[in-house]
């Protein structure tokens, strides 16, 4: 999968959609709910169900970063699946808030 900056991906097992903010430095296997994410424009395959090991959910507006590959995505639609890279769940990071927006 070519995770170009700005490209939009969706989960095949839940409503999650993400946009790539920072591309990975090496090949990254981006998954949601245990299954590889697909380009947003492609039709969703039938019959897949959420893996219970990856069912913590994704949160709208959170940035998820994988330290190992450098991949960073922004969740633009939330869903029931956990985002992961190479089997590792990836965590949400906070924006560095400006004092002006306190």
């Amino acid at each position, binding site marked *: 999968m070519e995770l170009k900056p*700005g490209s939009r991906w969706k989960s095949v097992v839940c409503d999650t959609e993400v946009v790539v903010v920072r591309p990975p430095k090496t090949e990254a296997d981006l998954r949601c709910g245990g299954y590889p994410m697909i380009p947003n424009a492609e039709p969703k395959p039938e019959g897949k169900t959420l893996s219970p090991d990856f069912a913590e959910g994704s949160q709208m507006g959170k940035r998820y970063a994988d330290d190992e590959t450098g991949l960073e995505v*922004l969740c633009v639609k939330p869903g029931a699946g956990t985002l992961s890279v190479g089997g590792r769940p990836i965590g949400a990071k906070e*924006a*560095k*808030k400006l004092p*002006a*927006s306190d």
Partner: protein
Amino acid sequence: MHTALLLDMMADAAPDRLALGRKRDGLTFYEVRRRAHHAAEWLQAKGAGTVVFVGLNGTALPIALFAAGMLAKPFAPLNYRLPDADLQKLLARTAPSVAVVDDDMAGRLGRPEGVTLVTRSAFEIACNQSGHSEAAFDEDHDIGVLLFTSGTTGEPKAAILRHRNLTSYVISTVEFLASEADEAALVSVPPYHVAGVSAILTGVYSGRRIVHLETFTPEAWVATAAEEAITHAMVVPTMLGRILDVLEKSGETLPTLKAVSYGGGRMPPPVIERAMRLLPHVGFANAYGLTETSSTISILGPDDHREAMASSDPNIRRRLGSVGRPLPFLDVEIRGPSGEVLPPGQSGEIHVRGDQVSGEYAGKKVIDAEGWFATNDGGWMDEDGYLFVEGRLDDVIVRGGENISPGEIEDVLRGHPQVADVAVFGAPDNEWGETVAAVIVAKGARPSTEDLAGWVKARLRSTKTPEVWAFRDALPYNDTGKLLRRQLKAEFAGPAKQPASA
């Protein structure tokens, strides 16, 4: 990632929250998206191209901005205050384009080739059709916003801000939906200023209601801030001084106001000190940025302000005149004339690097191979990383090989009890190449030039003491509060025009 997606996310997450306008008749996020979608379909039918906006602040502005984002076309707000001929020239440079124009400005624009003019009232009717647009658009998002620089130093340049520059700034500096439902931001900077664009994008992404002032007057600003229970605002320094005058006269205290950020020009220390005394419950932030950097790159926050104001240590106290510290996800360096990086305390040119930095004009990329953008602003950093901006390098006075920044001399003169405003710049001089000239707006009785010269000499070096003096009733500013030093400099450039001192 593109600008319209920011709105899309908020319209999904908080559809019923007020997004734009007044409490009694404002639009929700859901409604803003619905209208922007209709607008995009309508603009495309008009022969899509760049979406130009010529008009006052108001609901139509963010709707046109997001409609352009949906269409994946650049959005170009133009300065309607320019003389007609200059405005027409800029408009012609946007072709092929569709221009949304305030009804009473349409007559000023002529018929530039490749530009379809539509009135704001027609645009607003099109946005407000019932139901939902089903139109789908190109997904190839590239240029988000085209902003013409103010041209204080020559022909306006078209700065290119790509979607990735703008959205990177937004998602790095604002947490999604972080605002409380009762927060509201008052936006009084004009549509064609980068701060006007970034205020819309960050406001929407944080879920904060935006209230636009059609055009700035200090009376309308104070009245609106009180009526709409405004919590946040961004102003340019000249606006703040005038707002304080109204507050002092009216006794209004603006109890709901929490945060005011300012930028876009040098803030005179007496003005910010007065603001902190008059509005002690407000947190002030000095935001320094450029059009070419998608807005803010360095911030002096509320705590920095209070610490500097309360300190007797001159090194901390002087930070009130700084722009604070660079944002943590950007790199900033001060470089000397041959590109060498300078240590703290030394003046040079401010360079910046980061995702939000476009450093690009139509037809010309001015970013170097390592991603650095030379700002053309002079400045230095103290030991703790506080950045002091000295002004445009074009404004530096070179007197006998010594570089003198006008800002420092202006600050000293502004502290004189009989000086209301001042501009310092270089005037031609046969002996030194340039000499320091000062134009003074007096407060009450006009001070003598000997008195003023003595005031400067006692506080700065004698080489920084102005030798050419003149008095005026007012100084030339552009409408975003930038002092037009160049205009004064040109007036003083011819030896025949050299005015007598006083």
